[in-house]
């Protein structure tokens, strides 16, 4: 039985959530999520690369010999990564400065090679495209949620362009939330909450 096309897109948010359910792509998740904005742009870069690589892996899946598929995947992934890197350098130099080495590092991001190997290599182009989009969008949401929590607690405010909320700081910011320990704590607690929620809904379904 084939799953519906819509499901290929939506599964990336909860069911096959890259960060919280599959626990892959941890490096950018922890490293760049100090604000909503950083999380968003990192996510956009990943969506682009993931969709691009999924589509091309799927297109070429019948030509790629099984024995050397991994090197070919890497080339298919490296291409969009270079495109993203050059685009960011040209149009978002400030953001490139912040994300730094984590943009080229997308090439070794587990999410992308995992989707190529486990999904795009076996599925049709349309499904691979939707899968890339959905997993990427789910990943972007995760980065923005983690970034939002860390930015709010770590600086006292959330800045989206010129819009700053709340306009006055309500408490003394907790600097620790902007450091790696803060990232680990946020990630762990969110993962626990999502696991509890998923377990509860599964229990309800069973009844």
């Amino acid at each position: 039985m084939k799953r519906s096309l819509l499901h290929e897109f939506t599964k990336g948010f909860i069911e096959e959530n890259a960060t919280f359910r599959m626990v892959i792509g941890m490096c950018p998740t922890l490293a760049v999520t100090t604000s909503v904005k950083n999380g968003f742009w990192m996510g956009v870069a990943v969506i682009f690369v993931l969709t691009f690589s999924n589509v091309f892996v799927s297109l070429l899946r019948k030509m790629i010999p099984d024995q050397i598929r991994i090197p070919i995947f890497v080339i298919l992934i490296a291409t969009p990564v270079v495109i993203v890197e050059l685009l960011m350098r040209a149009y978002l130099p400030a953001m490139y400065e912040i994300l730094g080495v984590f943009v080229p590092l997308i090439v070794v991001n587990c999410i992308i090679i995992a989707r190529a190997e486990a999904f795009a290599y076996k599925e049709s182009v349309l499904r691979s495209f939707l899968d890339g989009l959905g997993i990427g969008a789910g990943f972007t949401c995760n980065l923005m949620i983690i970034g939002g929590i860390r930015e709010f607690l770590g600086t006292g405010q959330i800045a989206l362009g010129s819009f700053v909320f709340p306009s006055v700081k309500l408490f003394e910011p907790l600097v620790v939330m902007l450091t790696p320990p803060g990232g680990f704590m946020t990630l762990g607690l969110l993962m626990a909450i999502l696991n509890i929620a998923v377990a509860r809904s599964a229990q309800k379904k069973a009844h």
Partner: protein
Amino acid sequence: MGEKLIVTPSPHIKSPRTVKGVMLGVVISLLPACVGAVVLFGMNALLILITSVVSAVVAEALWQRATKQEITVGDFSAVITGLLLAMTLPPGVPLYVPAVGSVFAIVIAKQIFGGLGSNFVNPALAGRAFVLAAWPMSVAGAWLNPLTHDAVSSPTPLAVLKGGGTNIPGLWDLLIGNRTGSLGETSIILLLLGGLFLLVTKIIDWRTPVGFLGTLFVGTWIFGKPGALFQGDGLSAILLGGAVLGAFFMATDYVTSPVTPKGRLIFGIGAGLVTLLIRLWGGYPEGVTYGILFMNLMTPIIDRFVVPKYYGYEHDARARKSAEGKR
């Protein structure tokens, strides 16, 4: 933890001692130092102590209620966590610091891992490490002068010592606590009084504090003075900072330290060593918190490798070999 299961090496003799009794003993042993803190640092100290204890107890009760567990605040363990956390804070911190620290200690460090008996690090120290990392400026710079209660801008004696200075208070001032420092760490006499009580009632094992303070003393004596060996001021090293407080009241936490006597000695020495490393060559002036937290993480490994001999087993390889030869 009303269970009848006691996790120690044999012999398994049951004693009338209960969790509540032990915890009450620790609270009693902390009281002199707490009173001393209030005398030395005034109302500020009292408010910090109260805020910290109340937040710890309320956090524990609310969490246990929210997760539908038996509410166990009556066993005094949350009170101890609150007291210990407050005692490690400088007397001039804003009151949200002990409040947030206590909630973090109880909810994140203790309850999430399963509550009393299941936490892998000392909750009070985890709370302190968190607030220190969260508000480094207001936590590490809020010292008060004892008795006059004026804000102090000069560094604590420990920071002076680290900077290579020698202008530290005399021995008597160190013993009664007439120096800048955290709430409960300054009055050595009162802390020792509490520690002695715990030792006499056999609530704690002497090996951990002796290992800890001994290592710190000897290590500082050998390496304390830059450029010269065996000339460091070992005595000041154990009297300054939180070494005594940590050695008697925090490193001896049942849950997060080894269960065997030998393991406890190793734990104490290890904590002393990490403290020594941080104090002499690290970035912070004080390392007791991280020394104990680090050894908390080592505790499962120590317990795994320091296994006491079973009664009736042969002690030595030679004896075993000859026995096998006869067979």
